[in-house]
């Protein structure tokens, strides 16, 4: 059985239904336990929660008549017939849209998208959470049509869905109350082939490929994975979905992110990462590369602490991102810095005194770093001494830092993103370019 705060009971019930347990035993705790005084917590557990636990465990539970599963649509069946306006009203009523007009997903339109798929319509791309549904090529095509994608985006969309269904990504946490949003990073020849913007204003809504692929992912999470606000999606505030971040490889002095992550040069690759915090897009004003990288490290430290200083205790891996404009990358590379050098520098120079980290941990109700080591929440290096001035890192290893070069070539800005530790860790998938190559081939 489970125990959930009252606001989360609907979500817990939906998760149980998706898992085939519509009558899951759920005891409800009244209110927000995290901010209740200890005496109130004790009173609530004694008077409200514990009696429910006992009753749910000892008494027969009525057999639920609710069908299992979150979604109940018929595969390939026509769901509705009507004008553009009527279709959009129907989708709004069913909560199948994101509030903006959708392109009606007709069979003819979907067929155009399937021409760019490298596998059959019913092929599974993985299991989605929390709905526990199979992600299929057909479901990708339908939601892609709705989002305003072009058919030739299908190879990217298939890889995006494959990436989010990897256990490493922990897609069940997409609905965490932290309200983070997935950010899709694209590398390789596919950037030019699809007209993805990697330069000025790339994260603005506007360019069709960047925008509609980002919109597709939000629609897919909502419709197929079960992330409906207040049910699967428990974001306290939430964030808008991001357009795609295409790396500005032409202007970068370094290997692209995909190569850093183990793919071959020339591969087209998607990498999905979670963004719980995106920093100010900081201007760098410095007369030497050493000053630039030092300033980046200082800002990086500020961002990591200002977001959730305790995030390092919430998983054994993280994937923060450092996105810099090409001119900054070229300046650093010109001074001899490789990507690995930058990762190492930021790791070493963003460290904080233990006393400072402990203060951030206490804000989250987490004991000090040394105690976290005892509990297995931090690696042993965090308790090598009791010196409150000893320096501790803000992420586990230099290679966790994802460095991406993007944006206006000659503008001197960078930004940092932070994720919620293991929720939505950077996960990559190669894009199969065969169908796009066929489309290019002379007939």
């Amino acid at each position, binding site marked *: *059985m489970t*125990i*959930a*705060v009252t606001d989360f009971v609907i979500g817990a019930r939906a998760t149980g239904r*998706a*898992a*085939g*347990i519509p*009558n899951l*035993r759920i*005891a409800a*705790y009244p209110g927000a*336990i*995290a901010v209740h005084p200890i005496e109130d*917590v004790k009173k609530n*557990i004694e008077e409200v*929660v514990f009696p429910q636990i*006992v009753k749910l*465990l*000892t*008494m*027969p539970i009525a057999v639920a008549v609710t069908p*299992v*599963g*979150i*979604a109940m*649509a018929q*595969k390939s*069946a*026509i*769901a*509705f*017939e*009507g*004008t*553009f306006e009527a*279709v959009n009203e129907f*989708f709004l009523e069913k909560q*199948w849209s994101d509030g903006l007009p959708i392109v009606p*997903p*007709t*069979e*003819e339109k*979907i067929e155009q998208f399937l021409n760019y798929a490298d596998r059959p319509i019913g092929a599974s791309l993985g299991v989605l959470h929390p*709905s*526990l*549904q*199979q992600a*299929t090529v057909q*479901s990708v095509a*339908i939601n892609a049509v*709705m989002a305003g994608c072009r058919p030739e985006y299908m190879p990217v969309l298939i890889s995006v869905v494959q990436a989010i269904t990897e*256990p*490493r990504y*922990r897609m069940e946490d997409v609905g965490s109350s932290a309200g983070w949003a997935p950010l899709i990073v694209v590398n390789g020849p596919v950037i030019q082939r699809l007209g993805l913007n990697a330069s000025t204003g790339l994260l603005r809504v506007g360019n069709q490929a960047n925008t509609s692929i980002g919109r597709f992912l939000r*629609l897919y999470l909502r*419709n197929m994975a079960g992330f409906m606000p207040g049910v699967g999606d428990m974001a306290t505030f939430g964030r808008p979905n991001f357009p795609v971040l295409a790396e500005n490889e032409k202007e970068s002095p370094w290997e692209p992110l995909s190569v850093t992550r183990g793919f071959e040069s020339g591969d087209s690759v998607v990498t999905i990462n979670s963004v719980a915090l995106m920093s100010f897009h900081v201007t760098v004003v410095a007369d030497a590369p050493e000053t630039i990288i030092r300033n980046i490290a200082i800002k990086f430290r500020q961002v990591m602490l200002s977001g959730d200083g305790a995030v390092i205790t*919430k*998983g054994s891996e993280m994937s923060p991102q450092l996105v810099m404009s090409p001119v900054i990358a070229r300046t650093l590379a010109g001074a001899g810095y490789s990507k690995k050098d930058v990762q190492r520098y930021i790791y070493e120079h963003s460290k904080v005194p233990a006393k400072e980290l402990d203060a951030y941990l206490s804000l989250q109700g987490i004991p000090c770093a040394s105690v976290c080591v005892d509990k297995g929440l931090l690696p042993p290096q965090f308790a090598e001494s009791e010196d409150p001035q000893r320096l501790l890192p803000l992420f586990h290893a230099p290679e966790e830092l994802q460095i991406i070069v993007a944006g206006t070539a000659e503008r001197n800005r960078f930004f940092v993103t932070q994720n919620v530790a*293991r929720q939505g860790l950077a996960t990559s998938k190669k894009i199969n370019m065969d169908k796009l190559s066929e489309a290019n081939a002379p007939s």
Partner: protein
Amino acid sequence: MSGSPGVYKVLSPVGISTSKRVPLAPPIPDLSGKTICALRHTFRADETFQMIEAFFRQNYGNITFISNQDMPDVNPTSPEQEVRLIKVLREKRCDVVLAGNGA
């Protein structure tokens, strides 16, 4: 578009659940002598499970309560960790698993 001009026949963007109904474990009329296992490490879990344990002990004799601190992470990040979690639940011979602490 298909059929009459200006009329669209559209497909549903939501899929079909393939999950099978899982029978709920039968109730346990008397919890005395049973093993209660707690899963969850965050959001004041250490405090709340201690309270729940105390109430179990007050109300039932011979209860075995496996603290959340003696159980693995409730959020497995890989199929291997999931298998490990199930293995531990079996090894501990849990009659009841409290997954979550109200947060």
